[in-house]
């Protein structure tokens, strides 16, 4: 590096400059939404609401990390919501039998195990990610109902609350966890062999294989991560509510995929970043929060979120078509 003149120094191995510009655009969009909502609702910028939004960001944000990895390889994971529901029930049941850390470990391992099954079916047997995770989505929700006996498990030990309500240097532990998770995921994707392989697999799997990269392993890993992180996310939810409901995590895949796509990732794989996803998570949470504050019926919120996802995709397509020209 030393011999390279300063102005020519490569600034690390970042993605395309277009991607970076996209993140800047999305950050501006997030700020515009924040300003608009604070003008529309005086309650928006209150301390209580901001912490409420951060709590919500933690749950969606954790799932969106796994989803980013999956989407970077060109796949999709529709099962995150129902895997969260199922692992939440597993956690609720396990925590009756064993110490809290062990119960959490069981739930996370179960989530990772389900992801491993999906990943192997997709990467080794070549099944379509959409179909495999759709099937797992149905199975997961069904098992959640069966294991829970169709009712919420409410006798969760109070000790679980420590996971959420401990402050470290004045920052809630769940928010700190999110920040550290994103920093680690970003560093992994940017600086490690595995991270770069995930990008290469999504961009051109055949070329990656011919260059000697372990495409099979790094095609499966994102699904394992996605399943495990779904369990981590639901752990934070349960810690707050002290209840595990088989319906938990319903439609979570929608928010997670939306956050990743709004963050500039391409559903064809190879393009996207953790920073973009984090901005996408904030945008999603702010919009949901804002719609609630303005008293928009929950029935209309689905339409709003759906429209935003489609618009984000449309903008991406138009921009990449221009870039290709």
């Amino acid at each position, binding site marked *: *590096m030393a*011999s*390279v003149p300063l102005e*020519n120094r*490569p*600034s690390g*191995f*970042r*993605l*395309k*400059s*277009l991607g970076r510009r996209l993140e800047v655009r999305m950050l501006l969009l997030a700020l515009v939404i924040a300003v608009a909502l604070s003008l529309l609702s005086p309650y928006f910028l209150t301390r209580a609401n901001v912490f409420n939004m951060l709590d919500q960001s933690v749950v969606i944000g954790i799932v969106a990390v796994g989803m980013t990895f999956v989407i970077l390889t060109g796949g999709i994971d529709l099962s995150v919501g129902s895997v969260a529901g199922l692992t939440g029930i597993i956690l609720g049941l396990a925590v009756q039998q064993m110490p809290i850390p062990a119960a959490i470990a069981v739930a996370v391992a179960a989530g990772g195990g389900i992801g491993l099954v999906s990943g192997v079916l997709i990467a080794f047997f070549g099944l379509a990610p959409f179909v495999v995770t759709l099937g797992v989505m149905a199975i997961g929700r069904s098992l959640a109902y069966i294991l829970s006996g169709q009712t919420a498990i409410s006798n969760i030990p109070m000790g679980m609350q420590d996971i959420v309500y401990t402050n470290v240097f004045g920052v809630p532990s769940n928010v700190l966890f999110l920040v550290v998770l994103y920093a680690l995921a970003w560093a992994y994707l940017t*600086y*490690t*062999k*595995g991270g*770069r*392989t995930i*990008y*290469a697999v*999504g*961009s*051109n799997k*055949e*070329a*990656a*294989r*011919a*260059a*000697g*990269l*372990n495409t099979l392993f790094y095609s499966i890993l994102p699904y394992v991560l996605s399943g495990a992180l779904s369990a981590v996310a639901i752990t934070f939810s349960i810690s707050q509510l002290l209840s595990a409901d088989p319906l938990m995590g319903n439609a979570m895949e929608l928010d997670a995929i939306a956050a990743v796509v709004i963050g500039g990732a*391409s559903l064809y794989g*190879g*393009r996207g970043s953790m920073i973009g996803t984090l901005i996408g998570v904030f945008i999603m949470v702010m919009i949901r929060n804002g719609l609630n504050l303005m008293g928009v019926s929950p029935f209309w919120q689905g339409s709003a979120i759906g429209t935003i996802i489609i618009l984000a995709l449309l903008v991406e397509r138009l921009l990449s078509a221009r*870039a290709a020209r």
Partner: protein
Amino acid sequence: MVAESQAAPDASPLLVMRGITKTFDRTRALGGADFELREGEIHGLLGANGAGKSTLSKVIAGHHAFEDGTMRYRGHDIRLRGTRDALRIGIGIVMQETSLVPDLSVLENIFLPELGRSGRLDRRAMRRSGEEILASLGQADSLPFDWEVRRLSSAQKQLVEIAKALGVRAKLLIFDEPTASLSPGEVERLFDVMSRLRASGRGLVFVSHRLEEVFAITDRVTVLREGRTVMAAKPTAELTQAELIRAMVGAELGGIYDRAETKPAVAAPVALEVEHLASAPAVRDVSFSVRKGEILGLGGLVGAGRSETVEAVFGLRPRTGGTVRLNGRPLKAESPKTAIRAGLGFVAEDRRTQNIVPDLSVKENLLLAHLGARRGFLCGYGAREKKVEELLAGLGLPQERLLDSSMLNFSGGMQQKIIIARWLLLDPSVLILDEPTKGVDIGTRAGIYQMLRDIAARGVAVVVVSSDFEELLGLSDRIVVMSDGRSIADLPSAMLDEEKLTLLAAPRTSMARNTELLNALAREHRGAGFWALIEDDRLICLNAVVADPAADPGFKAGEARAIGETRIPAALAQRAPIFVPEPSGGRTTLVVPITSPRGHDLGWVGLSLSSGEALPSPEAIRARIDTMAATL
């Protein structure tokens, strides 16, 4: 254009194209091409790789719109806006399986253009006219109308394409490399169909680079070079193979293969050794070896199994037999990673789908194989920084373009250089390149050849797979020829020329008759039969059958020998029309020239007998060889 004197009186021009130009991005594919086609003729369209013959045929078929020039079809100036336009006025193209819908039935595919029309489909009428079309081609009942097209062989799919064009009453049919994936028997059937189409007054364009086929089927020939017509509509019968090759390659191209010195690499140790490699179904039995500092060419026709061979060596394709040794150690074919770590590099054939990762920067593309070979957790890019700079300086690529968003913004030649550099970064002991100049314009090719020669000069063993014989001959020190999944010859390139390569590369099955004859001769007369090319005092054996070991002429198929080194030097030197006994005794040999039906020299067929055997009549043998030659 002056009308050719041989023109049949009724042969009016069906299509006249003048000064056609076509540019893709910054690459000029056609720079003033002329072409003329008559009714009732088969017109060969020839050229080296990248000469523009495919582009021109796609312009005729409406796939591409031309920029400048004129196109007159049946007396009218036309400009096509698409293949639909072309089909409507009777221009059809038969490509390799591309325009068929694999999940629809044969009948639906033949009448696919009808499906686009409104109104009810009359299946019974479709079936009837489908049968009529096949009957007119002499292929009645040869297609199962109700099968999905995916179940057909390549030859059958081609027949569907032809029938489809005839279904819309095409007057002009373009055959784009139609024989590339056909067996010799299927080629014969195709030529029969083409002859019938010619007899019915249609004009046919035959795009090919197989000269023997061009001589077998075409009436006239047009040659393109670098997007221009360099030989316009010459009657095939007036041409020799050498003239055609000269026109295709051009004198000014000779320079790009210039090498500083030819260094014999005999002394260098063997870097890669492949023995009896098999990878079902395409690779059956391939053996070759490369020494350090040597450039080995792997040649053969499309479908000979060359790409599959190198992919099996590299671990991209499972092996079913044989061994590979790299620097003396066995190389297992688990995955490319194993091969890369052992010191093998591989530039795959298709740059876009097999080499370039479009979403990574140029620098990361350059470092991709480094990443694949690396064992650590981190990328370890920093350690390669110096080497990257060195390589870039050699490529003439400015440092600031390293972080460029996309490889795809570079020319094909620069892309290829970056991909080659990707492997040089790892200091491989063997570098394999599959079609290294595919899609690279002629000007940049010289740069890639120079790069490969420099790599070899540094002691790397280089293996080049190419279907461009000229390139193989110009670049390689030695050439291994493959045919039907087997390596059949291993010769220094200095001994070969394009004609000999073409003969050697011919599918083994197309030698069936020849082998049959050699077999019959050898067995009936209890001797040895062979087919060989003889030039000055050297012999290249194309085929040999030995029934009596005592009559063995001293060379096998695919081998080259100085005449003096064989066991029948006197007979080979005299090539008299009688049995010539060797002065040393032991064998007596008849050597007879063999000529194709169109008068082309195909070398010599010989019959060696051990001295004790009764000599058959030379005239009878010669008659049998001539009869066989007439069917070639």
